[in-house]
């Protein structure tokens, strides 16, 4: 059985239709990458998966059951713009554990920070970090609660190129350990490097779903082909 099943999801904001009739399956322990231009609906799709938005119509199943509140914390989203709480890196990373009542979180926090390459950053003021460092804190914060599904919206857009390989390696390791990771990105090269499967979302509709080969290297769909070749304006 697929981990997540989205059936005919529609979502509008006012007069703008963000998602049209989106149906998608997500397999357990895979890296699924959603590619598309800005405004294609990637963020909305992730937010619906994270239960931050409710679809106007359509169904969202998790392990065969309709998704509800209880999934919060099992599925977590790291937004595109890094948001940090006022306080130390430790406080931020520990937040998810704190709200569940974990008292001795020190080990988990240290582990999470190590994974994103921020060892020793515990006492630093989160608000004073660079954009890239904040993004990594956000990821560590999400990892600390050991979610089943990790949703990443443009995770490396703010990070300096030298640090990107480590993050991509991290994604691979997480999936090897059993996590399911969904990444939204408009960086096609990254998509090629990390994905098990790729979804092409354009103007709220899915035009392609499949392996890296079938979507990025030899796209079957005309629109996807234009996108990949850079002929779609965005």
């Amino acid at each position, binding site marked *: 059985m697929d981990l997540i099943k989205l059936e005919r999801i529609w979502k509008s904001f006012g007069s703008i239709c963000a998602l049209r009739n989106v149906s998608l399956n997500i397999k357990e322990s895979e890296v699924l990458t959603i590619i598309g231009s800005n405004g294609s609906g990637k963020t909305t799709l992730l937010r619906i998966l994270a239960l931050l938005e409710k679809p106007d119509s359509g169904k969202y199943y998790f392990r065969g059951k309709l998704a509800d509140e209880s999934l*919060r914390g099992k599925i*977590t989203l790291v937004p595109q713009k890094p*948001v940090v709480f*006022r306080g130390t890196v430790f406080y931020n990373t520990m*937040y*998810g554990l704190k*709200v*569940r009542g974990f008292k001795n979180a020190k080990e988990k926090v240290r582990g999470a920070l190590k994974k994103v390459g921020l060892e020793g950053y515990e006492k630093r003021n989160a608000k004073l970090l660079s954009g890239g460092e904040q993004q990594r804190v956000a990821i560590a914060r999400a990892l600390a609660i050991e979610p089943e599904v990790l949703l990443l919206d443009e995770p490396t857009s703010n990070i300096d190129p030298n640090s990107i390989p480590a993050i991509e390696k991290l994604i691979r390791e997480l999936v090897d350990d059993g996590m399911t990771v969904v990444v939204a990105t408009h960086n096609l090269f990254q998509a090629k490097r990390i994905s098990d499967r790729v979804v092409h979302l354009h103007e709220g509709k899915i035009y392609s779903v499949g392996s890296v080969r079938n979507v990025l290297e030899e796209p079957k769909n005309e629109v996807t082909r234009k996108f990949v070749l850079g002929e779609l304006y965005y």
Partner: protein
Amino acid sequence: MILETATRTLELLTNPAVLDITLRSIRVSGVATILALVVGLPIAAALALLNFKGKEIIKSIFNALLGIPTVVLGLVLYILIAPNGVLGYLGLLYTELGISVGQMLLILPIIVSFVVNSIERVEREIRDLAYTLGATEFQTSLALLREAYSGVVLATIAAFNRAIAELGIALMIGGNVFVSGGRYNTRVLTTAMQMYVARGEIEVAIALGIILIAIVFSISLLSNSLQRCYGLDKT
């Protein structure tokens, strides 16, 4: 003229009566600010986080009250708290506490509006973040309030400065009482200034004004540097 005023100011700083008045100004407005925080923070939290009918109207009322003239408030309070008035039994007229309460009412809208505003600014993203990390509604509210901290600091500074610099309430409620060595004095920097101006002793008035401005400025500077130190000025 400038030299005279400068020497006057320095002389005055060592005058015990002036010291008494200055400390009283700080004390009275400080108490007012604390009272305003105690009353205002819960109100602000409720307005920012809860949803109820009339919420927008109440927010607009607080915004409108931001500009209330101190003489108007002072006069209304004088009528209410004079011993024969409706609230006369509280015994607040011509007391320091009376001035504090009056100033508290004056600055309450500042606290409420500032804090509501700073919560609302970060609300969406913090709410989403807390939600996605598994926080309950209550925990999310706490997180929001915690993020509003820099707004609270700014609000406190603005409120204190408004309180210590106002005249209408301190005059009408306090009465500018000053008996040397007396225990019931209510004279503060602003009421002293207006008295000296009325008497034509302009240099003394200016010197007191310099003291007042010095207080207001140094508190603002202190707040600014604290904020930068802790990165609170970055959203």
